[in-house]
């Protein structure tokens, strides 16, 4: 009779309690520092935000009390990520189209898919080393060494695997019936892809690509010896061929300065970087959840 009731002191029940509390403790240890980290960055960085921050050049480190602003770095990050996107998106979407629409699972496509995964795992600093050897040290770009253009290329190497993967997976989710219907009414392969499959996979591809861009915007390692850093405003097109600052490199350089003013500037830049990356992430997550709901109906 008794055996039908829950018995607290049975060894299996004690063991269960023990492991349950262990996993709760794990979750707490894992999550609390993370919450602390995010709030600290947002509060400490947010308190440094002033309107001048967005318009001024940073002052070179020294005994100046005023560190200036982060305008060149902000614009530089936008330019460098744009360059990276201009290179990586067409190549990645095109490659993804080949993998999902044309390849028949043969050796070539298996090799490319494998290569995409391997490239995704290449340390980001190696991308910087590669571009340094290929472009910076050879001065192949019209004689310029460190440049925003080289930095953008290094970042595009990191974005490429993400873009190919999301395109490939997004296109594979499109039901085959759509393709049959389009081919059946006499459309050619490229019309089918451009007018039917690509538009219907657009949202999932766009989400993945935007997340990839957000990740690239925070990358520092590939930029520190390709784009280097600059204290000056970006004024014209030719600035692409010279050293270019970015938020990420600004944080790195100014965090290691012994001066308080520069450290504060690094916190402010972190605030802007983290806030924009997190909001892009949250926004695309909400969008993805929303589309999933509407699809089910």
């Amino acid at each position, binding site marked *: 009779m008794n055996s039908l009731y829950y018995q607290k002191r049975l060894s299996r029940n004690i063991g269960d309690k023990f492991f349950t509390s262990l996993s709760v403790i794990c979750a707490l240890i894992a999550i609390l520092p993370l919450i602390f980290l995010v709030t600290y960055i947002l509060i400490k960085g947010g308190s440094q935000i002033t309107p001048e921050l967005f318009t001024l050049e940073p002052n070179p480190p020294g005994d100046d009390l005023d560190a200036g602003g982060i305008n060149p770095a902000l614009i530089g990050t936008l330019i460098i990520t744009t360059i990276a996107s201009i290179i990586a998106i067409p190549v990645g979407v095109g490659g993804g189209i080949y993998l999902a629409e044309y390849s028949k699972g043969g050796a070539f496509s298996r090799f490319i898919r494998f290569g995409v*995964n391997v490239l995704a795992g290449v*340390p980001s600093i190696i991308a910087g080393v590669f571009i340094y050897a290929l472009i910076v040290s050879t001065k192949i770009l019209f004689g310029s060494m460190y440049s925003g253009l080289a930095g953008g290329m290094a970042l595009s190497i990191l974005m490429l695997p993400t873009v190919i993967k999301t395109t490939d997976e997004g296109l594979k989710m499109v039901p085959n019936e759509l393709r049959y219907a389009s081919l059946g009414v006499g459309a050619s*392969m490229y019309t089918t892809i451009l007018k039917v499959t690509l538009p219907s996979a657009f949202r999932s591809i766009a989400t993945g690509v935007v997340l990839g861009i957000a990740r690239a915007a925070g990358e520092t390692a590939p930029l520190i010896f390709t784009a280097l850093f600059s204290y000056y405003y970006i004024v014209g097109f030719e600035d692409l061929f010279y050293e270019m600052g970015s938020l990420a490199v600004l944080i790195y350089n100014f965090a290691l300065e012994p001066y308080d003013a520069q450290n504060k500037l690094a916190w402010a830049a972190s605030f802007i970087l983290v806030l924009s990356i997190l909001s892009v992430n949250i926004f695309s997550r909400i969008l993805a959840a929303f589309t999933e709901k509407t699809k089910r109906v």
Partner: protein
Amino acid sequence: MEEKLTLFKNRKRFGIEKNIDIIFKNTALVLSSFVAIILLGIILVVFFQSFESFSRYGLKFLVTSEWNPVKDEYGAFTAIYGTLVTSFLSLLITIPLGVGTAIFITEDFVPKVFREIIGSFVELLAAIPSVVLGLWAIFVMEPFFRAFFVFLHNFFGWIPLFSTEPTGRNTLLAILILVVMLLPIVTSIARDSLNQVPKKLRNAAYGIGASRWKTIFSVILPAALSGIMAGVLLALGRAMGETMAVTMIIGNSNAFSWSLLSPGYTISSMLANQFGEADGSQVSSLFYAAFVLMILSLVVNIFAQWLVKKFSLKY
């Protein structure tokens, strides 16, 4: 597809349209092969740039720890040791924490809404740039742990790992910031593979009277093991290549020491620190170190992919 299309051989298509179709396909083919070209390009370029240093030092480069641009003597043992010790020790801390958290999220200890919030929060953290984590490590973590390190040294100083007086930035801090960085990766991959275990396995285990944790240990975890292992290996690859946060907090010293409380070096932090100003044979030696790093992360990555393929769930 090919077979079906031949059925319509007689249908007249404009020549231009046919050509566009062929051009489109070939463009896509060329674009997809860019991945292979870039990957091979990276391997070849880094290898050939390191050739000078490779032919001069050979494998001795890997086991000597003198790095002296003045005397033009280079050996990367300190950096290689640093890379291995930081990535493996950080993983050792991360695995139980991450898997424990993943179990907490996938079991029904708390209502689903909370678990989903925790899960997506952990995933969001993977998006925080590592340079920001480095900044946080310098200004928050280092002062926070200073007293703890002194305590470690005072009481466990007889263990070689804690034998040096802690002075600011050190290897142990780099390990701790790597844990913060790897936790989201391990947790989210472990959660995904735990979620993929079919419900009927759990129900069957409960049905024959297994308790919750008996089920987790004997049924759920073994079934999810390959996914978790792959996630752990991906995290290992990430830890080896991680540059910014580690460079900012590890102290960047090439003097070799067994102690975790002394400043150290990793391959990637050495590259980040010296690449900009290096010249002559130092550049070649740095490329050699980069090559070693690349091989390490390639091996880990390929092994992870092989593992996923070999042991992926077959239910």
